[in-house]
């Protein structure tokens, strides 16, 4: 596979840590295939010769059952060059706070589950910051090593994702001093730096998902000043101008449905294209997970070639 390095080598060193470390956020409305597209994105980068970490956010693993792997907080190898990890808010926040606690031995007792749950629940921005902090740590600190150059994040769905992106700016406003203020200000800059962060927004060719994607693209643009790349998932490849079938034709129901899907796909795509170029991902009609992910990675790579 040809190595087309998308990371500008010297850019991220300005944040004080590892160079050429990139973050690719994959988000979208629930049920649009966001996690599957994130996994295919990890494959896409690995094929180009990158070392990839596929990180899922949340308390339960999607990839574990899907790929038959024991996915947990420490990365587990999936393929050559790809590790998968699951980050949950409680342990990430615990990790963050305990790093700054004066007596490390007390960490476990003090930051027990109830306490962490209370902290996470009462100050959601704290946990979102810890999450972003962990994500961006290698680019900010020389001591935090992560042996990858691309992190693909199977991020939260729309609303919660925006809340996470807003957290650093919010914190920089509430906290007026201390490391958190410093970190938040740097993280806000990193999230808005196209050399560091890329945003991929997945949607389906259906009315509600398209509406939500349009809203989110605007919010992203307003929040971080970066337009997301748009991916329209599960598209059927249909011939142009399907003629209507006669009511008594046995193919009537099928043809009618395909004509409807065709119209829906066209209107959805043209609505999305008003926001920018849209990458088209096929509906994969086989149940085999490996095949599905490979097909999507192919489609992602092919779409990249297009202007």
């Amino acid at each position, binding site marked *: 596979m040809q190595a087309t390095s998308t990371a500008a080598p010297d850019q991220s060193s300005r944040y004080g840590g590892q160079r050429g470390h990139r973050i690719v956020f994959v988000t979208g409305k629930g049920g649009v295939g966001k996690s599957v597209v994130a996994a295919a994105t990890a494959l896409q980068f690995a094929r180009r010769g990158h070392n990839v970490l596929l990180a899922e956010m949340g308390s339960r693993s999607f990839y574990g059952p899907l790929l038959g792997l024991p996915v947990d907080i420490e990365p587990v190898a999936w393929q050559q060059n790809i590790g998968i990890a699951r980050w949950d808010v409680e342990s990430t926040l615990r990790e963050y706070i305990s790093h700054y606690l004066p007596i490390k031995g007390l960490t476990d007792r003090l930051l027990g589950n109830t306490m962490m749950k209370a902290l996470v629940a009462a100050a959601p921005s704290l946990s979102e910051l810890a999450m972003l902090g962990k994500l961006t740590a290698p680019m900010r600190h020389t001591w935090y090593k992560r042996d990858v150059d691309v992190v693909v994040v199977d991020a939260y769905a729309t609303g919660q994702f925006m809340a996470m992106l807003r957290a650093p700016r919010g914190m920089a406003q509430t906290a007026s001093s201390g490391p958190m203020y410093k970190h938040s200000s740097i993280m806000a800059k990193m999230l808005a730096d196209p050399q560091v962060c890329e945003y991929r927004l997945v949607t389906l060719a259906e009315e509600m998902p398209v509406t939500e994607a349009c809203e989110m693209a605007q919010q992203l643009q307003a929040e971080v000043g970066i337009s997301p790349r748009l991916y329209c998932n599960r598209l059927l490849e249909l011939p142009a101008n399907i003629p209507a079938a006669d009511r008594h034709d046995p193919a009537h129901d*099928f043809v009618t449905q*395909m004509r409807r899907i065709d119209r829906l796909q066209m209107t959805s795509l043209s609505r999305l294209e008003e926001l920018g170029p849209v990458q088209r991902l096929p509906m994969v009609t086989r149940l085999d997970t490996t095949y599905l992910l490979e097909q999507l990675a192919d489609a992602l790579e092919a779409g990249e070639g297009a202007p």
Partner: protein
Amino acid sequence: MKALLENHRVIVCTGSGGVGKTTTSAALGIAAAKMGQRVLVLTIDPARRLATSLGIENCSDDVRVPGQNFAGELYAGMIDPTSIFVDYIERHSQDRAAAQRLFDSVLYQQLSTTLSGSQEFTSLARLHEAASSGDYDLVILDTPPAAHAVDFLLAPEKLNAVFDSTIVSLFMGRSSGFGLAATAWKQGMKMILGTLTFLTGSEFVRNFTDFFAAIDAIAPQIRQTNLQAQQLLLDPTTAFVLISSFDAAKIQEGEAFHDQLSEAGYHLRKVIVNRAWPQWSQGGEQQQAKVQESLLAGKQHQLAACHAQLQAYYSARRALHTRFNDLIDIPEMDGEMIGLPALERLARVLLAE
């Protein structure tokens, strides 16, 4: 299905995102109304067109769904977590000043919208109120969207953690007991607050303690409501329905949730696997062969290939293994389910079962 609707006072529809939960909840409501019941469907964040067809757009009160002609009556209500939470706090605070202190705290503003568990809490508070009002024979709750079905059950625990009396006391600097252990705890708390102050600056921590001081007054009420809601959920007249879509990941998750529900003592009465087959694919193999024939006769080669591929795909999916034996074929409606007639069609499918 009839027995389910007849024998319960509350039905809680659970399932992960994107499985047609809201649509199915609404259809269950229609089915119950057809059977002559006074039924309320409570939903959170419905698709706009579904909200329009239920008549609950921009409306937080229960409304009689317009354009119905059932033996019973169908009502619908939208759960707006923010306004319910405000209303709840106002009703349960000792005085206006106490409520205002809470509303003014910076953390509250995040809490009411992003607190994990607050949507679930308000849903449960609303459910409890509706179920105990005596206005309805049956209340159907469409649970908030979540990545995983089990999130709904974990929510009260998360919320309880915030309102846990020991945590509140700790953040307020009250000792939670005597002796060495309590002293160690207090020292520990000091260290955490110290670290937080170091990390975030003093203002943030002051917000934090302000917040805990403000919720101190209302915490017992919230715990009480949580408890009542839990009792309601465990009541034998409350049925859980698990809605799942028919793909490998969702089925796996559904089966795990099924076990968790049963273990925790909830009454899971029904699993609806929403297979959403397109209408055209319902016919058997002979029928599909005719479709092929007709497409090829019309020189629609590409379309014929597409048909063959999709047909093979849907057959393969039909053969997916699940230990749920209670599958319902729900025909795929026009894109998203819209309008009362489409929901009625779905209700008929559910009742025919």
